[in-house]
């Protein structure tokens, strides 16, 4: 696919840019010593993912990504970070030595194994590409799928969110704290 037809060079360029942004920001999230920057980096990561979603013709998800994540979640993060104040901490430090080594080994192993698996499949079940219609990924289509095929999932999601909200309230409630 390096010998890509001229038609999708653009797509390729976009993809590469997005991919590298994604990875770069991810690395940044993990490696910034200041959680505040990490959170900002996450925004970049999410944005680049949104772009990739667009390439995958999942407009609605891309939109949701930007709104829900970049919009809500990260902002929540930023608030909390601001609340607890900046706590700098250097990565790769602390804990027993074998912890770090093990960490790299385990994470790396997982990654490599999955990539290997993908490599094995690249020629297999993944090779045949299905051309998708224009309706694919549009909000309307999503809505239909949501309400017809996966109604239950939809409902569950709401319950989960509710529970989380309750939990947040319980844990975050300032009222009547014990004298510590």
């Amino acid at each position, binding site marked *: 696919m390096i010998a890509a037809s001229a038609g999708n060079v653009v797509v390729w360029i976009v993809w590469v840019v997005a991919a590298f942004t994604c990875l770069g920001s991810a690395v940044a999230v993990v490696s910034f010593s200041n959680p505040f920057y990490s959170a900002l980096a996450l925004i970049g990561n999410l944005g680049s993912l949104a772009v990739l979603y667009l390439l995958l013709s999942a407009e609605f998800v891309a939109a949701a990504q930007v709104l829900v994540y970049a919009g809500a979640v990260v902002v929540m993060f930023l608030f909390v970070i601001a609340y607890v104040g900046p706590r700098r901490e250097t990565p790769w430090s602390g*804990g*027993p030595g074998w*912890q770090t080594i*093990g*960490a790299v*080994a*385990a*994470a790396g*192993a*997982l990654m490599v*194994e*999955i990539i*290997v*698996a993908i490599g094995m499949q690249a020629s297999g079940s993944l090779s045949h590409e299905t051309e998708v219609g224009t309706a694919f990924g549009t909000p309307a289509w999503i809505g239909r799928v949501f309400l017809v095929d996966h109604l239950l999932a939809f409902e569950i999601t709401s319950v989960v969110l509710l529970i989380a909200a309750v939990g947040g309230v319980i844990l975050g409630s300032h009222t009547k704290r014990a004298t510590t």
Partner: protein
Amino acid sequence: MTGLTYGSWLCLLAPLAGTILILLGGSRIPRLAAAWIATTSVFVAFGGAVWAFFGVHSQHQGPELLPLTSQVTVPAHGEITTAWTWLQSGNFHVGLQLLVDPLSTVMMLIVSGVGGLIVLYSIGYMDGDEEERRYFAYIAFFVFSMLLLVEGGNLLMLLVGWGLVGLSSYLLIGFWHDRPSAVRAAKKAFVMNAFGDATMALAFFILIAHTNSLDFGVNFNAHLSGTATNFVALGLLGGAVAKSAQIPLQTWLPDAMEGPTPVSALIHAATMVTAGVYLIARTYPLFEHARTIQLIAAGAGALTLLVAGLIALVQTDIKRVIAYSTMSQIGYMFVGVGVGAYANGVFHLLTHAFFKALLFMTAGLVIHAVANEQDIRKLRGVGRLMPFTKWCFLVGALALVGIPPFSGFFSKDPIVASAAALGTWYGWIFWVCGVAGAFLTGLYTFRLWYLVFPGEPSPFVREHYHDHHGREGAWTMLVPVGILAVLATFAGWLQWTPRWDPFTRWLAPAAPSLAAAVPTDTQEYFTSVAVVIAGLAGLVLAWAIYSERRIAIPAAPFWRRLFEEKFYFDWLYDRIFYEPAVATAAFLRREFEEPVVLQTGPDVGNTTLATGSLVRRLQTGLLRTYVLFLAAGAAIVVLAFLIAR
């Protein structure tokens, strides 16, 4: 059921009843009551024995010497009664049986008769002991066991009686249980007898394995190979020598003198120790089938009668001297039954019961009168104060030495003669031993006599002698002694083999003497002369040494020491058996049980716990470690799947 059956059961159960009565009575009945219960029960037993005797007698046809049969059949002149099946498994079964035949009736009479006299004697002897009741319970129980032994209608019942007499002997030897020496002696006696029981049991196992039965009626030899028979005989012999204190299992008897004197008289002279003789006579077919073993028995007897005689020479304890003489006399009996002259052996058993009991009881009188002193060196001249005792003892002594017309003469000489009758080299060896034994008997017996009875009473005696209301002892003690003195004198006249032999004929149906062991008259006379001369020689020598001091006691330190150490048997057995056993036990306990067996469990446990604390260390409490494990686990599973797919 005929008279003899009733008689036999009455004879057996009366003493048992006595025991139980005394036990149940406990401390609620007065001491004398216990004593008289025991005595009566034994005399009742004697009555039963007499009843049985006449029962058998009525059936007893004239004297026929049965041809040598190689099997024990239920005798024509007696019968077996079964109370119930005592032990049964598969098609092996043993009944609680009694056998009444000439042999057993003789034994019953001896046991219950002499026993009765001795129990009567005990009344006086034990008077004042604080545990009298226990004593009489024990002694009645002994009589029961002994009767079970002689009446037992099959080998297992015989063994039961055999073991029970061992038990009661243990109880009586250790009667004064706060004396460590007594307890030790009792244990020794029991364990040695248990050894005999074990060998007998093994012999029985062979019989069971081959014939699946232990009845006298079975023709064992038909089923047994020569070797098997030899082993059976050997096993039985082991029991016999243990019980009868013959070499090599003789060492317990002298120590057994720790018991009260009547006990020594009853158990270790008159009855129990002669059980070995009875056993061989009872199972003679097996022995005759294993002739070698039978001759070994005779050899053991011959050896014992010499060794015991020699040891007796240096003993200083009055009872021990008599004890060794007992061993030696039983040696004679073994020679008798060993060569095959069962009647002679049993006859000597009979007379010996009388005169040996007599000797012990007179000794008992002395001991009782002189503050329980048993050392003959202190007792010099006691005869002056106790004439009756003195003369009775003399009777016993003469009977023992075998001076005519006392009973020993009639019973001892035929044994030696039958040894000669064999005509073989070993026959003659037995003969020589017999004669030599007679000489020793004379020597040690009259050594005892001259040391104790004649002459001026020693100051010790004068000081400690106290009579019993002007008599030498309670009448309960004197009467039996008198009776036995009479018996010891005349019992022998019952038969004089060259001329008349009703006793042999009486026994013939039960234990017909081996034809080869029936001496010719010449042999008889010749032997008698030899034995009597030997006996007199010993007597004279003793007179010369201990009375007249004509001859100094030969100073042979080595021999003296050898005799005093009883030929080192005890020493040897300690080294060979007891100490190794103790050492092994201690070693196992120290080196194996504690470090290995008991420690293995805890060790494993601790190892496990150590592993536990290792695993525990993984639990660092660090969140990241936990995640790491999760991730690593996932990675490994994925890898495994990718490989194994």
